[in-house]
């Protein structure tokens, strides 16, 4: 029994990581029908930007600041203007393929210009363990979980309580009508890209001490987050969080009680079952638009 609790806690810690990455997926999908296959790489890159700034001799806090700014510029604004805008009208697929190419390009660029080696990354959360109800949990994992929860609360507040949030929701639900009632649709879409860029930079900051800064670390993350987003519901921020946590826990339980060789299979089977019985995802709402 104590073993089970251990696994649950560890699963939630990993799941929080997936959830944090998955949130961005759902945001981009909602406002602009963008499936970003490079989302994992988006999380990988900011850490390297920060490392590069530190390499020049800047202190860690400044590196974080510049790293976030560069993320907003490259992964938010640049991504939207250079890749998404020209292709958006042509449907989901060409853009999805282009993000796959982007993922390859980002991995190769980091490998070529930084290193193929994994490098350690300083943690803003002290590296240590705390004991909660007799379970040993690392502070870093708690930090990720706390951030994930804060992100959901923050985003929900933004979307439901502020006028910008209402405009973003209107954009997500029906851009044509939103445009007619005077919502600056373009600016709202840009907002979501900037929010996504900010989130991946934060995620990078918290996850990299655990995953290490490595050009390929986005592969595992991106795929897990994608699956988490589908399971939870592609069109809901809360869905992404629930999906992420669920996948994390299921993965751990599968490794302990089913088979370590097939641990990755269990979340996928879960995904297929969910699609059969609740295609919109656990917390998603059915989509009216056909894609």
């Amino acid at each position, binding site marked *: 029994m104590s073993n089970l609790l251990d696994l649950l806690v560890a699963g939630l810690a990993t799941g929080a990581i997936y959830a944090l990455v998955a949130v961005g997926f759902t945001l981009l999908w909602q406002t602009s029908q963008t499936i970003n*296959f490079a989302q994992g790489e988006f999380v990988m890159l900011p850490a390297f930007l920060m490392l590069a700034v530190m390499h020049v001799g800047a202190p860690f806090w400044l590196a974080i600041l510049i790293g976030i700014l560069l993320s907003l510029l490259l992964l938010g604004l640049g991504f939207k203007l*250079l*890749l998404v805008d*020209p*292709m958006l009208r*042509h*449907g989901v*697929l*060409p*853009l999805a*393929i*282009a993000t*796959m*190419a*982007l993922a*390859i*390009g980002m991995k*190769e*660029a980091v*490998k*070529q210009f930084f290193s193929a080696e994994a490098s350690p990354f300083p943690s803003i959360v002290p590296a240590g363990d705390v004991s909660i109800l007799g379970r040993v949990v690392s502070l870093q994992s708690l930090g990720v979980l706390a951030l994930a929860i804060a992100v959901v609360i923050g985003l929900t507040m933004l979307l439901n309580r502020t006028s910008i949030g209402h405009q973003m929701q209107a954009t997500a639900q029906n851009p044509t009508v939103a445009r007619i009632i005077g919502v600056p649709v373009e600016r709202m879409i840009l907002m979501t890209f900037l929010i996504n860029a900010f989130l991946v930079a934060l995620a990078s900051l918290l996850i990299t001490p655990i995953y290490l800064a490595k050009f390929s670390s986005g592969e595992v993350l991106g*795929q897990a987050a*994608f*699956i988490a987003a*589908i399971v939870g519901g592609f069109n809901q921020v809360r869905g992404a969080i629930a999906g992420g946590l669920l996948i994390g826990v299921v993965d751990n339980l599968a490794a302990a009680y089913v088979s370590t*060789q*097939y641990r*990755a*299979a269990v979340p*996928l*089977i879960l*995904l*297929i079952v969910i*699609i*059969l019985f609740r*295609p919109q995802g656990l917390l998603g709402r059915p*989509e009216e638009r*056909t*894609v």
Partner: protein
Amino acid sequence: MTATGKYLRIGLGVAVIAALIIVPMNFNRYGLYILSQWAVMTIAAMGLNLTLGYAGQVSLAQGAFVGIGAYAAAIMTTQGGMPLIAALGVAIVLCFAIGWILGYPALRVQHHYLAFVTLAFSTLAFLVFRNEDWLTKGIYGISNIPRPNVMGFATNRPLPFYYFCLGSLGIVSLAMWWLIRSPWGRAFVALRENPVRALSLGIDTRRYTLMAFAIGSALGGVAGTLYAPLTQYIDPVPFNLSLSLDLLMMVIVGGSGFFFGPFLGAMIAVLLPEWLRFTQGYYLMLYAVAVMLLLIYSPTGILGILDRYLTERRTKAASALRAVAKSRLETAP
């Protein structure tokens, strides 16, 4: 299309086919290997083009079907000592059946859920290839896969094997050409263009969509049975999700829904990285940039550019005619 245009196209077709047969004769082994790889990947991409380009369904499992075909060929020819043609039959039936079973529930619900189900299937297939040692030899892979004898000719050498792949590509292309022009093919396109209308015209949309997906998957299996004797060694790694994504990229980049799209897409995916290798460590980066630029320039792929160009020229010609006619009218007394 005018008669001269038709002759031009036939002439071009014959020239390309002749070039594919004659030019590689003095290629080295590497060039022949790459061209054989292109032929194999084209077959797999043609299958996906049927699913995606003609029936409008996204499959992220084409790589897994290539894997199933490759393992069928590898296991049957090395352990069972059976001829490749038997493996081909098994691969086609297996992939068709799995495609059908996979698509059935997914298409029950909604359009794009097939993409999600196939995404999951793709990774599941990889895990089975890797973990079921008793059948697939797991991560150690299967070595010494023999190349087949075709009508008494051994295809061990690179050139005969290339002709074998090219011949297979020819047969698959002819079958596909026929399929698309058959009532089935027209039904597939009707589905993609307007599912509601197709339904009202009495087309059983789900059955036809499933059929397109299953046939497309079976072609993945065909490509796999050629891939195994091409490399003569297989392990699970090449058949993971990234092969499925690569094949999807080939279809989109070539021009989804165009008959010759997969030929060009596979050429980009197989040959472009090889060309770019002279840039050493930068070649994959440049490849990625090239694909992005191409898609930005023409999201409908390479053949989309040609299509656009032809349409433009036709409208220009028409407006020129109009202008001439108009000026004549004006100058007429």
